[in-house]
């Protein structure tokens, strides 16, 4: 079965439909790859091979009848932030213990309805809080890429680090991610894959463990945008159980790939030329502009004047919400409980033992910014700035169709290069956070390698609910970049 790992999601779908391969074969090949390679990557928290085989068998029966949804028989990995019925869901935290939800998140239910086969639950930063997947109670996920000159372990980015690593290494054909301030786009860039953060409200949040409710958005991660488009079409849609989900039809995203970019106006936000940005990132950005111009797009400089407030306002808004969202993890109804003689003691002991350091830091910051006497100075001002940031985008989009920026200020760094200053770590999100704050869709596509052979991504930001234009522009970059590099650790023939 050599070559089975060369399948993309789209080509596997076609091969399944035409019965060139069976879902059981495809699933078994991926289960084997996980068993072989995930010891090095730690991309899975929970593996579900038996359930996957059963699902694949069922998919084959449906496919044999010439039926089946768009993902029938496609093996996927699920970020362990989505609740999955009967399968342990951890959010990469000790506090949830062996929590097994008796319900399915809407996003994963949509994927299952279309016939997807789940291989297991993927690693992440605890409660999606992090940019390197170093904050997991189940140990860090590892980037399958290595620098050309060293064997040091690189981070896969975060928080959807396990999803990114598993997709890049060919352990799954696609994965779900969630993006609150860059958690799909940054790890996608760090691992040389594609990822889409849809418009806020496009995918239901029901059944997805909340980090920051006004920012959290599920999205697809896969080896290319066609695969992401197929996944997004399945994941998206209105859900009456999420009051913030939007009732607007889900288009055929895959069809948008063919649209091209002729006449498209691509904005270059001048404020994204930040101090200290490595020259190779700047060069890649220029390269992206050239590619799009060559494909027929027009490059226009635009201004997003409130960009510099993006990070601080994000960390106030997101952490305020998180401090409240995480109050329910108290050891009373589910998850780990550390007994104590008083109720407050039970809370303190359970939460002290259950939450990791970064989560505790963020709960404390979030609690502080909402406190009496500080609310106006922090939370309220952040909300006002958030409105201004959103207006920046709306204004820019009066003049252009999409924006092009780098995804992250650097390529993947080594585990031991993690900044000791948490604020330094937060800078990873500098290009991704503003789109999250505005709620507009954005994606990352692999665009090249840095000087040490590590992938770099470009980000495209689009108008509300215009994921199609975003996908069209992203595909133009994909075609021009012709990114066919493979990571060091990969299920197929090694690079």
């Amino acid at each position: 079965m050599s070559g089975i790992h060369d399948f993309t999601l789209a080509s596997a779908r076609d091969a399944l439909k035409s019965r060139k391969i069976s879902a059981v074969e495809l699933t078994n090949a991926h289960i084997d790859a996980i068993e072989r390679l995930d010891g090095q990557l730690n991309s899975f928290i929970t593996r579900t091979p038996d359930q996957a085989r059963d699902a694949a068998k069922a998919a084959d029966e449906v496919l044999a009848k010439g039926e089946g949804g768009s993902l029938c028989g496609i093996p996927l990995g699920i970020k362990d932030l989505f609740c999955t019925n009967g399968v342990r869901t951890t959010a990469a935290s000790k506090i949830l213990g062996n929590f097994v939800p008796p319900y399915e998140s809407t996003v994963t239910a949509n994927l299952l309805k279309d016939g997807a086969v789940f291989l297991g639950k993927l690693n992440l930063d605890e409660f999606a809080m992090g940019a390197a997947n170093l904050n997991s109670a189940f140990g860090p996920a590892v980037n399958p890429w290595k620098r050309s000159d060293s064997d040091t372990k690189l981070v896969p980015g975060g928080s959807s680090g396990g999803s990114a690593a598993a997709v890049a290494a060919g352990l799954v054909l696609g994965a779900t991610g969630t993006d609150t301030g860059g958690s799909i786009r940054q790890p996608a860039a760090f691992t040389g894959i594609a990822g889409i953060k849809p418009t806020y409200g496009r995918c239901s949040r029901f059944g997805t463990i909340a980090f920051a409710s006004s920012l959290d958005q599920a999205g697809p991660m896969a080896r290319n945008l066609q695969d992401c488009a197929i996944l997004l079409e399945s994941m998206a849609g209105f859900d009456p159980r999420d009051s913030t989900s939007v009732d607007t039809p889900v288009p055929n995203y895959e069809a948008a790939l063919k649209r091209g970019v002729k006449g498209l106006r691509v904005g270059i936000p001048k404020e994204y030329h930040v101090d200290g940005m490595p020259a190779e990132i700047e060069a890649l950005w220029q390269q992206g502009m050239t590619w799009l111009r060559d494909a027929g797009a027009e490059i226009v400089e635009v201004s997003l004047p409130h960009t510099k407030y993006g990070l601080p306002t994000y960390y106030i808004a997101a952490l305020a919400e998180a401090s409240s969202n995480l109050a329910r993890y108290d050891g009373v109804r589910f998850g780990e409980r550390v007994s104590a003689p008083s109720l407050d003691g039970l809370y303190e002991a359970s939460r002290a033992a259950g939450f990791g350091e970064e989560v505790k830091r963020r709960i404390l910051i979030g609690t502080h910014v909402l406190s009496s006497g500080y609310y106006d100075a922090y939370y309220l001002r952040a909300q006002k700035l958030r409105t201004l940031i959103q207006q920046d985008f709306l204004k820019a989009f009066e003049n252009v169709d999409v924006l092009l920026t780098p995804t992250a200020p650097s390529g993947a760094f080594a585990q031991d290069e993690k900044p000791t200053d948490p604020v330094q770590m937060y800078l990873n999100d500098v290009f991704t956070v503003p789109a999250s704050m505005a709620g507009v869709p954005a994606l990352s596509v692999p665009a090249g390698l840095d000087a040490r052979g590590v992938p770099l991504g470009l980000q495209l930001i689009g108008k509300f609910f215009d994921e199609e234009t975003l996908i069209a522009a992203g595909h133009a970059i994909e075609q021009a970049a012709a990114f066919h590099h493979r990571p060091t650790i990969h299920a197929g023939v090694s690079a």
Partner: protein
Amino acid sequence: MSYRITGSTGEWEIVVGLEVHAQVVSEAKLFSGASAEYGGEPNTHVSLVDAGFPGMLPVLNQECVAQAVRTGLGLEAEINLFSRFDRKNYFYADLPTGYQISQFAHPIIGKGKVLVDLADGSTREIGVTRLHLEQDAGKSIHDQDPTRSFIDLNRAGVALMEIVSEPDIRSPEEAGAYLRKLRQILRYIGTCDGNMEEGSMRADVNVSVRKPGETEYRTRCEIKNVNSIRFVIMSIEVEAQRQIEVWEAGGTVDQETRLFDHVRSETRSLRSKEDAHDYRYFPDPDLLPLVIEQSWVDGLKAALPELPEAKRARLEQEYGVSRYESSVLCVEQAIADFYETVARGADARLAANWMLGDFFAALNRTGRSIEDSPVSAEGLRELLGLISNSTINGKIAKEVLEDMVETGESASAIVEKKGLRQVTDTGAIESAIREILVANSDKVAEYKSGKDKLFGFFVGQTMKAMKGKGNPALVNETLKKLLSE
């Protein structure tokens, strides 16, 4: 007369504001589909949303919003077309999510008013500051086990309306009257059953005192969760007394939350201002702002039932009942409806008399409510008809009503069966009287010698002989005639 408490330094005035938590009548909870019904085995009316499971999201129940708007209309209040839900953050075992969803900065209902009737016949207007929607918490049960507490989440997430009054209340009586009137309005509109025993209506009582003439308010204390009107009245009395003693001893009242202990008739400190929770209110990001249309509000308004004040005015006008009678008849909608059914086609004044008198007495005696009255409105109307057309007299009618209550038979059936039809045959009356006069010739002589009071004796004897069925007017007339012969 203004209510005053006399202390060692002179007179004091009290200032009271009430925060009433009224449980909304609705099928489902405020943000989940679980049943909002009272009772049930512990933890049987609980959805995953109510229990705060990971990834669960609130979805607003439109009926609860409609109930809040209806209540606002009943309080003649501003209806805010834009409102918002906030999270009130605090940790407690019966609060699964660690926050209560409430409306802090932008409530759905703004300023309104309640007209209250006082014992001296006067009315006062008490301002309503606001009404907002919020979730109830679950119930902690601490007395079942020496070391453990149990949690029942049946109530968690049930919709409450918090109705906040202005500090307009100046006496314990007014506080009681306000609560009764508020409860009456809520029951009329059907938005809260007002059942304080089941906890579907509870009050937080804010009390301060000051010297008459002072324009500023002094520090207030909040007495939490008082669950009957009587206890609200008592708690105000004892708390005002306590505060006066503090001030008069040269101390200052501290702002704090207190509990009322009705057994000891005292209030006790629960927590001081310094220990007050910092609730860290902020807009709930799981919910969009609540925007309602004026046309929807108009539709709800058009469908509102007649409210107590309007009903009273109409009864007085249409049926000629007194202000006092209308207030009693309108206490509950069902009573007013019953009355109107009786009064239509009967003597309306007589109907009011009978309802307030013998009929309510019969209800009290049997422990029945108007809804399961042993005598129907139609049945009572028939009885009154028999009085009006002189088939029976009032005294006999009282007996007939008792029979009706006991047997469930109709008034006319009882009258026929027992032969209670009034005797209007003057011949029969005259012969009965003649027999009495003959048998009591000594009394007749006394009467004739000036002992007028004996007239009543003759009436009594005659009625007794006629088994009460004599027409009273004819008996009187005939007696007078025969005694003067």
